[in-house]
């Protein structure tokens, strides 16, 4: 168990913390915008950046005053930090404690081919995988990963994501996994911490975090891009865009001004013009192909902000939507989340 207690550190123009976090033998993903302090947090836990205050303990042992090599915590750097005078194999062997059979690791990470190459000639993704293998070869008591998949291409990332998940679970150590990719975070982690400007905003399981963000920032950061201001109109109605639509009000005070959000994939296109209070008419202002889905931006009649929705290409093809087309969308009551 890795515990951070009011951990603080700072640069000239940046303050991290105080951060309180407990990481059991699980994978905790740290999601956060660029410059939010993710790398700084990992460096502080690893002892590479000195803490200004607070405490780091691993399985009850206080680490705060120890040098990096005595923390039993391995940090995988954002750029790999491979030793340039060694081959990939030598990099891995340097770290290996001898206990883990590294061959399996090398196979999982698809490194067999590049093993005897000088690391300076490796491509970005190859470097990152070598760094990952190297860190795993040490059998650490805790593992800190700084965007370990950032330079990997989609198929290998996809494969690795699942294999890493299995690997991580088998390690039964605390793992902190910094990423800016929500999907990586959702797949690989048990819980996700969202960090912004040096502070932790929310820590939750992926499903919970994606469904029920506690702040607009967390919402937007987890792909909940439709965040709107509204007013509680009734015990089960929300007044928005000139309409009173059904929403899970949960006993909030009537008249209160709130924000609510709904994920773009939970907004559906409906064809029949029912009298459903959650159905709105609008115009497609933008439609973008995204590979496996389409992103639509819809301007409603009485709303200021546009609503974004994601349609599978199957639905999109079926509906034959084009830009400037009129359509009706439905904000499903169950997926409306009031912040």
């Amino acid at each position, binding site marked *: 168990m890795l515990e951070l207690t009011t951990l603080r550190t700072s640069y000239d123009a940046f303050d991290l913390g105080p951060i309180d976090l407990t990481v059991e033998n699980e994978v905790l993903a740290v999601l956060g915008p660029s410059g939010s302090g993710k790398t700084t947090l990992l460096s502080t836990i690893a002892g590479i950046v000195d803490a200004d205050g607070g405490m780091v303990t691993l399985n009850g042992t206080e680490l705060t005053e120890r040098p990096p*090599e005595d923390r039993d915590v*391995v940090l995988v750097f954002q750029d790999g930090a491979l030793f340039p005078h060694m081959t990939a194999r030598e990099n891995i062997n*340097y770290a290996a404690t001898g206990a883990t059979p590294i061959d399996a690791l090398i196979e999982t990470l698809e490194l067999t081919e590049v093993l005897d190459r000088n690391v300076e000639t490796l491509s970005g993704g190859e470097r990152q995988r070598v760094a990952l293998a190297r860190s795993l070869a040490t059998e650490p008591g805790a593992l800190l990963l700084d965007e370990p998949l950032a330079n990997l291409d989609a198929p290998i990332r996809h494969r690795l994501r699942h294999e890493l998940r299995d690997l991580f679970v088998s390690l039964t150590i605390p793992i902190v996994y910094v990423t800016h990719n929500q999907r990586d975070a959702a797949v690989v982690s048990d819980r996700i911490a969202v960090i912004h400007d040096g502070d932790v905003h929310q820590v939750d399981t992926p499903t919970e975090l994606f469904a029920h963000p506690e702040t607009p920032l967390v919402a937007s950061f987890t792909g909940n891009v439709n965040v709107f201001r509204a007013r509680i109109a009734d015990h089960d109605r929300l007044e928005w865009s000139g309409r009173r639509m059904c929403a899970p009000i949960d006993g909030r005070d009537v008249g209160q001004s709130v924000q609510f959000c709904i994920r773009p994939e939970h907004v559906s296109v409906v064809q029949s013009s029912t009298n459903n209070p959650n159905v709105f008419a609008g115009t497609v202002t933008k439609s973008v192909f995204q590979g496996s889905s389409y992103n639509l931006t819809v301007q409603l009649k009485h709303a200021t902000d546009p609503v974004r929705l994601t349609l599978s290409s199957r639905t999109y093809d079926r509906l034959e939507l084009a830009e400037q087309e009129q359509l009706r969308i439905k904000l499903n009551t169950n997926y409306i989340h009031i912040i």
Partner: protein
Amino acid sequence: MRQESILSPDWLTVTLVLGGVLVCYYLVPVAALFLSVPLGDVIVQMSDPSVVQVVATSLVGATISTVVATVFGVPLSYWLSREQSRRSSIIVGIVVLPLVLPPIVSGMVLHMVFGPSAPIGRLAAAVGVQTWRSLLGVVLAQTFVASPFVVVTSLAAFSGVDPTLEAASRSLGKGRLTTVYRITLPLAMPGIVAGMALAFARAMGEFGATMIMAYHPETMPVRIWLAFSGRGVDTAFPIAILLVLVSVAVLVVLNTVASNPWT
């Protein structure tokens, strides 16, 4: 703006001309030295046992000085590279002092400290070690004059090693010692070897300080000086050529052992 590279051949020419002038400036006098003496004379010198003795003293002295400079200097420069304070700037200043002193003055001041009338010299003599007019004296003089090269050059080399790599190694559980030994040193090695080469070369050529501190046993520069005062350039130059040949041979070996230390 996008036109300027039309100048680029000119620029290369200027670089090569400037550099070429300098290389010629080094090469021509040395070539003149080699051409001024028939090769036979050099071979004759090489078979003179007293010359062999002198070559041995020079080689042994310069080698020991280089090793001493490395053993003491490399840790110092590592520390200097990682500790960037006022204090370390002052220490760098002290390291440059021996370069500023004319070698003969260096010899005199070393004699003030290690000579027979100095406390340290007397103390050493009391335990049976003579710090002057001995191989030890040669080493003391050469080390004083030549070791700053190791410190200054290694310092630059260590500063060039990315601290992230050290952090990565330590995070992998390797202590400072292992990290320095397996990561920092190998990465700084070209610079360190360059420093050793400079120090060795300077030690081989060192005359002023060695002359004052030792004179006997003779090193090659002292012998060159003696040959010159005794019989003129005809006997001095063959030994100078021998000195160049021996030093270049050692540097080539050093270069080969440490692959390419210059880059």
